[in-house]
Structures are given as C-alpha cells and as structure tokens.
C-alpha cells in the first residue's frame, strides 16, 4: 500500500535514504512502536483541533449562532470519522497507483493482525482520518450563521467520503500528482486549500449574512461573541498543529526521523509566531489599532503556510514564510468583503490563500520541487474541489435549500433551527 510515505520518499531525497537503516539500528519492533506512537500522538493532537475549530468559530460568530456552531463542529467531526471509514480511506490509499483514485471498497482498514509494515494500520487510519476532519472543519466556519444544519452535514459526508479522498489520492495516495513530483508535506493544499475551496464555493452560492453589506459598499461588522473562546480555539489549533506537521514525518523510530520531527516542531512554532507578529504590526500600521482577531488569524495563516514544507526551511525562512501568511490574512480579509464574500471566521484567507502561498514557496527550501509542479498541484486540486463542491452546493440549493429564512437568520439560527440559546441566562438580542 502506498501511503504518505511515498510522498516523503519523493520529497525528502537524502534523508529518505537513511530512513530504514536507523530503524534497524533501533530494532525493527522498536521503530514500529515509535512510528505507531507518532501517529497516535499526532493523531490525538489533530483530533483536538476539532475542539479548536469549535471554539474559534463559537467565539467568532454572534451569540445567537453559537450553539449551532458547536453542533456543527461535534457533528462534522463525528461524520468525518464515519465517512472516512466507510469510503474515504480506501478511496484515498488503496491501489491508486499513479492514478486518480483508489478503490471504492467500503469499510477501510485491513485486518490488524497483518500489521507487518512500519507502523500499525489502525494508527495510520486514525492519523489520516483526523486530517480529513480538519478539511471539513474549515468549511463550517465560513458558512456560519446562515446555512441550514442538514445540508451542511450532507456536504460534510460528501467532502469526507469522496472529495477529500480523491484529491488526496492524487498525492498522498501515490497518484498522478505524486508522480509529477508535487510536494505538500502535511497538507497546505491537500487539507487546507481543499477545505478553503469548498468553503469559498459555499460562500458564493449561499450568499452573505443578512445586513452584512450595505448598498454603498460599506461593511457592517458583526463582531464575534467571545474573544477568549476565539483565542482558546487558536491556541488549541496551534497545539494541534505540532501533531499535524510533526506527525506527517510519518516515522519516529530513527535518529533522523526524531530530529526531523523536532525541526518540524521548531519551524511550525516559528512560522505561527511570525504570522502573529506580522499581523499585529500590519494591523497597527493600517488601522492604528492591533486587531486581536487578525492576530489570531495570523497565527493560523502562519501555520497553514509552513504546512506544505515544515522540515526543510531554516528557522529564519520559517518565520518569513509564516509572516507573509500573516500579511496575506490582514490584506485578504477586507478584500473578500469588497467582493461581498462573507467569510465569518476568515477561513478563506487563512486556509485557502495561505495554503496556496505555502505550497508555492516550497521550492525555496526543497530542491526536489519546482514552482511549476507546485502550481499544477494547487490548480488541479483547486479546480477539482471547487467544481465538485459547487455542484454539490448548487444541487442542494435547488432541492432542499441550504439557507435559513431571513426571519430565522435575524432571530438567530440557534433559536430557529435548534430551538435553544447558547447563553440562555444572559439577556441579549
């Protein structure tokens, strides 16, 4: 079975050569345990990102939509797990062979008694599954406060069962992109941009929140209900990202792998820090005020930017890559508003734009890659995800409908769709 290891093999050249030997040195079983442990630790850290998205989104929507946002996040993480097991995993990894998708065999993961590879199959499944869930989380933030619950969840099923695994197969499943030499270490494009494209299509087809844009082109800010929850969510995501990027080394059982994971931790942290600092400085310069939500988005943009290649850059380059991610966010957030694209939490700048940036900048530090190939990867995945997502959104829009009524939206989706309030004890509109 080809896994993400294949990608590493292509991407990392020299280091790969020594990859199996140290495993021997440390003992094959020991390496197996270490590798498995890396997947498990990385996996639970990325799982924890689901809580991060939930808190970030709960903090960034108005209080009348908070319970819905919580509902969506716990539901989407659950659905992602089931959909990726029913269909996604095999579609992504089973017999892709340089092609466009794997097998449509339902019910993934081979019998665990055949665990004879470099790590436990179940640990790999767990690790890959949480990545898939991450892509779905991205969509939920952008479309908050106006989308109906059921159509959103249907989209999650399709995204996690079909869209994500197919494009993932192209690269991490050993499909045509990986054969072309595309490189996306931990998924700037495969996870983050994918979520971002799906969100963008949703935002375009769903439309903006009622009252969000005035006829004169000005914007009515709709401040998030809880800055501490948004901050908590960002810190959770930051923490989870050590698993996201570090775990994507896919091996821990040798001196080289352990060192690589360590460097990834360091670069990941510095890129996020660069994103925060850049966003703070730029928002101070542009608006004469530091904007906390921009700093939070900046951290995430820094993280997304370094995700395509967290290992090879020097620390300084990591700070710069992340810092530019932070700048992208500060500039792109009001830009989207210009186009009346209503992205409630800033997921499109953070995940889509910084994801593209991170993918294109890989060749700066990774000799085995080229801007052209990176571009091909970005475009092919972008087109595929956008087109399929748009079709799914359109079909649902013209059948079951994807948007709550204006009255429901004004009184809040929490009351209208869930019949509850997130903070029932506090008087508020």
């Amino acid at each position, binding site marked *: 079975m080809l896994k993400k290891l294949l990608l590493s093999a292509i991407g990392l050249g020299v280091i790969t050569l020594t990859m199996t030997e140290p495993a021997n040195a440390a003992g094959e079983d020991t390496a197996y345990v270490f590798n498995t442990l890396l997947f498990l630790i990385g996996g639970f850290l990325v799982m924890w990102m689901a809580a991060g998205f939930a808190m970030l989104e709960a903090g960034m929507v108005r209080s009348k939509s908070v319970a819905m946002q919580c509902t969506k996040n716990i539901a989407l993480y659950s659905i992602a797990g089931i959909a990726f097991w029913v269909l996604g995993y095999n579609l992504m990894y089973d017999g892709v062979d340089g092609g466009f998708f794997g097998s449509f065999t339902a019910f993934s993961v081979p019998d665990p008694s055949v665990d004879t590879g470099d790590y436990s199959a179940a640990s790999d499944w767990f690790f890959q599954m949480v990545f898939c869930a991450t892509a779905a989380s991205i969509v939920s933030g952008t479309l908050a406060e106006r989308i109906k619950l059921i159509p959103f969840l249907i989209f999650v099923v399709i995204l996690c069962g079909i869209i994500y695994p197919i494009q993932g197969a192209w690269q991490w499943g050993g499909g045509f992109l990986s054969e072309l030499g595309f490189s996306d270490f931990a998924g700037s494009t495969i996870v983050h941009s994918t979520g971002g494209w799906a969100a963008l299509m949703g935002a375009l087809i769903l439309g903006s929140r009622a*009252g969000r844009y005035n006829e004169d082109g000005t914007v009515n800010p709709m401040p998030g209900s809880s800055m501490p929850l948004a901050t908590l969510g960002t810190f959770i995501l930051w923490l989870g990202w050590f698993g996201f990027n570090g775990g994507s080394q896919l091996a821990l059982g040798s001196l080289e792998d352990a060192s690589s994971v360590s460097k990834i931790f360091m670069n990941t942290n510095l890129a996020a820090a660069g994103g925060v600092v850049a966003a703070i400085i730029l928002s101070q310069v542009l608006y004469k005020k530091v904007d906390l939500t921009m700093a939070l988005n900046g951290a995430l943009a820094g993280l997304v930017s370094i995700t395509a290649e967290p290992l090879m850059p020097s620390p300084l380059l990591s700070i710069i890559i992340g810092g530019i991610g932070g700048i992208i966010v500060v500039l792109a957030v009001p830009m989207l508003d210009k186009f009346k694209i209503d992205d409630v939490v800033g997921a499109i700048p953070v995940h889509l734009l910084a994801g593209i940036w991170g993918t294109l900048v890989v060749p700066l530090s990774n000799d085995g890659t080229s801007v052209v190939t990176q571009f091909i990867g970005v475009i092919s995945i972008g087109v595929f995800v956008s087109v399929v997502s748009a079709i799914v959104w359109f079909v649902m829009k013209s059948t079951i409908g994807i948007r709550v009524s204006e009255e429901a939206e*004004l009184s809040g989706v929490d009351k209208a769709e869930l019949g*509850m309030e997130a903070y029932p004890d506090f*008087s*508020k*509109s």
Partner: protein
Amino acid sequence: MKLITAIIKPFKLDDVRKALVDLGIEGMTVTEVKGFGRQKGHTEVYRGAEYEVNLIPKIQIDLVVKDDLLDSATSAIVEAGKTDKVGDGKIFVSDVQGAIRIRTGEKDAEAL
C-alpha cells in the same frame, strides 16, 4: 416634554434609530428587555422536555422629546419598526416634568 417608550424587535433597532436621527432627535436610551404579549411564545423541547417560551427578547427605546416632536417621532418609530407580524411592539407616551443635562446643568428643553 414627553417620554416616548418604544418596545421593538431587536433587529429593528438600527432602522428605528436612523429614522429618529433623521427627524433631528439627538438622544435616546436603549435597554435590552424581554417581552410578554400576544406574540405567544412557542413550544420548545430541551432535553426531551417540552416547555413554553414566554419571554421574547425585545429592545426598549426611551426618548424624551419636546412636545412638538411627539407625533413625528411616534410615526417614525411605527414606520421603521413595523414588520406587520405580531410582536412588533408598542409605544407608550407619558409626561416628563423636567430634564437636566448633568454636564452643564442646563434645564428642560435645553437639556435635550
């Protein structure tokens, strides 16, 4: 001077405020309240238990105006606050005997 107390739907606040500003009204005070009225609450289910929601979030606007602005102000509120659905709210009018601007000590009409 009259005190106009208007109870409106929360999402109408901005429209009503703008309508009043257009009339030249320079001050008002806004309170978040909950209303009980004909707009009977609906039945909700929480953890399997049904219950009536009786109190519905509303916004109360209090503004003290000179007598000559009374009619235009109430009309403006009616105009801007109406959705033609039950629960649009009420306007109450009562007498105010005096007003003082704390900053300057100005009285009555000057204080508004």
